[in-house]
């Protein structure tokens, strides 16, 4: 380990026999002419010259992204020493060992294009507890296994930190009106959405209450609330006025709200739960009424806070760009569309991004695309499409990102997460080069076979996304023949690995994901005609599936987040009359 000295403890000059590594920008760095001046938030200087290696970031000079020095170090370790962190835990860590480490002159000055680079990391929550209960584990066991699996021999920090995710736009986004029914419901029921049955009652789902967006008193009340929120936290740059999500209440059907919709808008499907059965019905997109509502709030809030922003959502029935209303300049759009299950949806989303980015003065990517396969954990790989699309977004106004979410299915979807993280740092990187590097760093002589493995997976999702109607990926994509092809690639990679233990462990990790995929696909196939499935067919298969989930939980919790899968999936097997072992 290289010794560390404080600046005040060193004297003289660096020499070939005693070079200096300056970490962080201090007095000595300035004296020697190393500076981060001119770099933006999260920026790094990485430079070697005159027997000095300087690794430093803008740090506290840019409080919205104060971790530049850490970024400089992890990037140096990657670029110059070949260190990689493919997935959390030791098996994902690649640390080449060298007896001699020389660093030639170089200089990198870099400021990340995206001011906010965020991938949410799914942690313990109530849904996970449902899965844990089904699998027979406790929260304490979950936390202990994850903590143990996260350890690496050389301290890496969090995987997300290693990959230089960070920075903040300093704006609150999200569903903003979860407390509104509790606050105003009794006194002002007319402020809430008129339902098809004539009621405005939101008490069944108060935290998902729908509002009467045309009501001027409601708009004024929300504006007052937002002004107070900004008064309370003057450091915030923006606060949310994004609508509530989901729930059984429908959007307001009062004539004044309906009149705000532009009849030229895209058709969307709305829902009505007020009858005996759910009724879905066609409607024009609600974006123009939303813009009316948001603009009304913005006009009032900006009188008190002209330099602050209001964060709104392009999402749900208001995902389509507005037709006739212009957005107030202090509105910031969180764009949630784009996904890889359906090529037509992808293309529409990209078109929508272009329109929204022209309509809004500020826009960022609040993406749900990582949620594909979250319930199944299947290996749905989309890295090339993502790379292409992400660069497009970055070149068309994207200020930052907020990905919902990494679900920790690393053995099957880890390559996606890796590429997403790397492109967040620098969207201009070449995706082929990233994948090639991932395979070569992690799998050495077996890299070509592993690359083919991922290419095959990506082709499967591509083919599925082009089909109409959309199949369930587990049923249509991962049949026995496909799984056997994938197995042959893993076996070939193992033969090529030359018995290298670290590579072998990484192949074990991928193979665990494939074993899971095989069982999960077989189990889903049974759901096609549950009545025709004999119990002596379903039970052994689902018992094996359950046993594999328990094994993964205990031995490789980062391979697949089985507690989350259990929450998402395990109620399905009731259709087959299956009860898991106790």
């Amino acid at each position, binding site marked *: *380990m*290289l*010794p*560390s*000295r*404080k*600046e*005040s403890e*060193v004297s003289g000059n660096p020499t070939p026999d*005693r*070079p*200096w*590594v300056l*970490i*962080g920008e*201090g*007095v000595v760095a300035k004296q020697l002419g190393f500076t981060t001046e*001119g*770099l*933006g*938030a999260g920026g790094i200087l990485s430079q070697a*010259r*005159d027997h*000095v*290696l300087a690794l430093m970031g803008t*740090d506290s000079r840019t409080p*919205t992204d104060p*971790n530049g*020095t*850490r970024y*400089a*170090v992890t990037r*140096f*370790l990657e670029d110059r*020493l070949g*260190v990689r962190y493919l997935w959390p835990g030791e098996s994902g860590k690649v640390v080449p060992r060298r007896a*001699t*480490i*020389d*660093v*030639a*002159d*170089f*200089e*990198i*000055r870099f*400021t990340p*294009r995206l*001011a906010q680079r965020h991938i949410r990391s799914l942690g313990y929550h109530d849904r996970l507890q449902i899965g844990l209960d089904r699998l027979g584990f406790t929260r304490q066991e979950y936390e202990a296994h994850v903590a143990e699996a996260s350890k690496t021999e*050389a*301290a*890496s*920090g969090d995987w997300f930190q290693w990959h230089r995710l960070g920075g903040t*736009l300093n704006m609150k986004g999200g569903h903003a009106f979860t407390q509104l029914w509790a606050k105003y419901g009794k006194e002002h029921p007319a402020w809430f959405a008129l339902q098809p049955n004539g009621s405005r009652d939101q008490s069944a789902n108060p935290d998902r209450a729908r509002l009467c967006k045309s009501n001027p008193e409601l708009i004024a009340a929300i504006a007052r609330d937002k002004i107070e929120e900004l008064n309370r936290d003057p*450091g915030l*740059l923006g606060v949310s006025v994004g609508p509530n999500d989901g729930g059984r209440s429908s959007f307001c059907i009062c004539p004044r709200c309906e009149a705000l919709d532009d009849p030229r808008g895209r058709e969307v499907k709305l829902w009505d739960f007020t009858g005996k059965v759910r009724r879905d019905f066609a409607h024009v997109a609600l974006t123009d009424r939303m813009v009316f509502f948001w603009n009304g709030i913005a006009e009032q809030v900006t009188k008190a806070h002209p*330099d602050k922003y209001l964060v709104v959502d392009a999402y749900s029935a208001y995902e389509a760009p507005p037709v006739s209303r212009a957005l107030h300049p202090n509105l910031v759009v969180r764009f949630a569309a784009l996904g890889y299950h359906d090529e037509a949806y992808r293309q529409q989303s990209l078109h929508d991004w272009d329109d929204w980015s022209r309509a809004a003065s*500020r826009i960022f990517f609040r993406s749900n695309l990582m949620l594909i396969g979250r319930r199944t954990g299947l290996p749905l790989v989309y890295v090339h499409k993502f790379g292409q699309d992400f660069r497009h977004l970055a070149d068309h106004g994207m*200020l*930052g990102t907020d990905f919902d979410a990494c679900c920790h299915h690393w053995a099957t979807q880890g390559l996606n997460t890796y590429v997403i993280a790397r492109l967040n740092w620098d969207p201009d990187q070449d995706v082929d080069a990233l994948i090639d590097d991932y395979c070569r760093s992690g799998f050495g002589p077996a890299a070509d076979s592993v690359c083919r493995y991922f290419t095959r997976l990506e082709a499967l999702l591509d083919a599925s996304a082009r089909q109409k109607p959309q199949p369930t990926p587990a049923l249509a994509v991962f049949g026995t023949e496909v799984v056997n092809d994938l197995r042959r690639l893993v076996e070939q990679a193992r033969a090529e690995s030359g018995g290298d233990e670290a590579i072998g462990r990484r192949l074990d990790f991928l193979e665990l994901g494939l074993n899971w995929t095989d069982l999960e696909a077989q189990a889903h196939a049974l759901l096609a005609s549950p009545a025709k499935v004999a119990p002596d067919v379903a039970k052994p298969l689902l018992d094996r599936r359950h046993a594999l989930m328990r094994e993964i939980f205990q031995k490789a919790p980062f391979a697949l987040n089985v507690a989350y899968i259990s929450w998402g999936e395990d109620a399905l097997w009731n259709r087959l009359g299956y009860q898991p072992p106790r």
Partner: protein
Amino acid sequence: MSDPRGRPSASSHRNTGCCCDGVDRQDASGRRITRLTLLCLTLLFPVSVRAVTLVADGKPRAILVVPDRPTTSTGQAVRIFQEHV
């Protein structure tokens, strides 16, 4: 608090090693030096030098120099660097 679009965002990568600008040049005596010749010279006499030997034959040679009052980021960076080099 700055406008998020108002921040400096230029990124640059600069290698300080010798490189050819793609244009044939003439020396003092007027003889043309082709790109190929420049390339050969660059390979024979690389401008890029070994600036820093961090570790030699498994033994630490460099020392880390850290500000007297390091930021949180610097503290994390030092630990990560030390454990990987």
